[in-house]
């Protein structure tokens, strides 16, 4: 059995990175928060841009990001008058047992003294975590997020099936996989529901995908539409189009739906494949899967997305050989070898699986080596959700 090399946290979870998080609960303290993080090795500042109201989806995403085992320590860095306060987040994070400190700009006499104090606190944390030694853990400790963005005709042909095989391999070794983006599952809900472990999960699968379809319809978007471009590209039915995207999650049974709404935020309760009720936007989609516990992400892109993530290393995979050659600085794995027959799908899947293991053991992705720390939170509009009867 192949092992990963990670860091055990006080709550028993295994991190594959040692990030120090400077968390600004709202954007009003984000600029100084960035200055706190800037001089300290391994530190990253995050925030959200939806104001400081106590929105449950925003709180769950921020708290979830901070709870993620890839985060070794947290400095909450607030202004002081936010409704979404440091104290709210502090209460949610205490159970992790990881080092957490809290600073309020309005109590420290302005940003200069708050930044100075913040840097000292972070430097102390950095020295402390540098003593942590990585040790081997079974791959069953790993939760993988699968994502796609900037898809093209090669995504459903090469990159997604190869990532799906790697996802199956991880699950067969006791690991966990999260797939999100219900928007891309419209038209294939009956197929996914058949893979649910029981009727209740099947009903949940139908529910989140059909709710998403309804949201789009109310926006004036009929997502059941197969475009002329889709047809010209060889896609015959809506099921086929959606399956091309879904296949990145592999073929194993769906253990459950992870709710991600104004009432609930679920985490996987066991190994296997889980379906999150998330967004189709790439960066926040990865954020919410990380908040549910994913430590590594596989991201397929035919056109060539370049994003990384503040919390999880993101392995970029393309099925398009031209994109790989064009964006070698950004794409980790070329799955385009499947297209010319020079490499089997199985062989590419094995390379992706090995990359997951190596990345989870500390090897940097190209986005990490370039210092990309993308972060964004997603929330749904409460008014629209109420009108639709969803909350």
């Amino acid at each position, binding site marked *: 059995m192949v092992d990963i090399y990670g860091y055990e946290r006080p709550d028993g979870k295994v991190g594959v990175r040692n990030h120090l998080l400077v968390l600004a609960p709202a954007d009003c303290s984000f600029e100084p928060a960035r200055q706190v993080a800037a001089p300290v090795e391994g530190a990253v500042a995050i925030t959200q841009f939806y104001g400081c109201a106590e929105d449950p989806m925003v709180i769950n995403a921020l708290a979830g990001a901070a709870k993620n085992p890839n985060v070794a320590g947290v400095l909450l860095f607030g202004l002081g008058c936010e409704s979404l306060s440091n104290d709210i987040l502090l209460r949610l994070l205490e159970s992790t047992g990881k080092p957490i400190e809290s600073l309020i700009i309005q109590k420290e006499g302005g940003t200069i003294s708050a930044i100075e104090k913040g840097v000292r606190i972070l430097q102390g944390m950095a020295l402390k975590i540098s003593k942590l030694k990585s040790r081997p853990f079974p791959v069953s400790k790993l939760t993988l997020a699968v994502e796609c963005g900037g898809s093209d005709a090669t995504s459903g042909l090469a990159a997604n099936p190869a990532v799906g095989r790697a996802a199956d391999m991880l699950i067969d070794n006791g690991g966990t996989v999260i797939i999100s983006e219900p928007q891309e599952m419209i038209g294939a809900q009956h197929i996914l529901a058949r893979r649910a472990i029981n009727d209740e999960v099947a009903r949940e699968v139908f529910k989140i995908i059909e709710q998403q379809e309804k949201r789009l319809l109310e926006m004036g978007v009929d997502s059941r*539409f*197969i475009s002329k471009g889709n047809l010209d590209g060889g896609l*015959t*039915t809506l*099921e086929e189009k959606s399956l091309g995207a879904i296949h990145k999650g592999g073929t194993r049974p769906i253990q459950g739906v992870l709710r991600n709404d104004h009432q609930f935020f679920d985490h996987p309760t066991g190994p296997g494949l889980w379906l999150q009720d998330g967004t189709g936007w790439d960066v926040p989609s990865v954020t919410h899967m990380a908040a549910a516990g994913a430590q590594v992400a596989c991201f397929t892109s035919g056109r060539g997305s370049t994003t990384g993530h503040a919390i999880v290393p993101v392995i970029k995979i393309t099925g398009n050989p031209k994109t790989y050659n064009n964006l070698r600085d950004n794409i980790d794995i070329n799955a385009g070898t499947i297209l010319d027959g020079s490499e*089997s799908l199985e*062989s590419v899947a094995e390379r992706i699986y090995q990359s997951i293991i190596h990345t989870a053991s500390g090897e940097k992705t190209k986005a990490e080596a370039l210092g990309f720390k993308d972060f964004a939170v997603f929330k749904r509009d409460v008014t629209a959700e109420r009108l639709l009867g969803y909350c």
Partner: protein
Amino acid sequence: MKAIQIETKDNVATITNDGAPLHEVVVFNSQGEIILNTESEEGISFGHKIAIKPIERGEMILKYGEVIGVASAFIAVGSWVHTHNVESGRLPVNHRR
């Protein structure tokens, strides 16, 4: 032409090489093994599907190991599989609001 069968139960494979369509088709499975050498009457473009088993009218079209539609006519091995001989199981092909 080259084509790949993604899951072993699939009765269609997808053409993977860009460029001018030829009539000889080599079909690989996911292990990279050649499972079929066939001739195609029509040229089939990149990303489009070719039948690798005879498919009766009313039979399910399988890709990714899943049902992507139902055959609306008999489809011989080597034939192009698209909207002219497949119906969606869920919505009419070319569905418009």
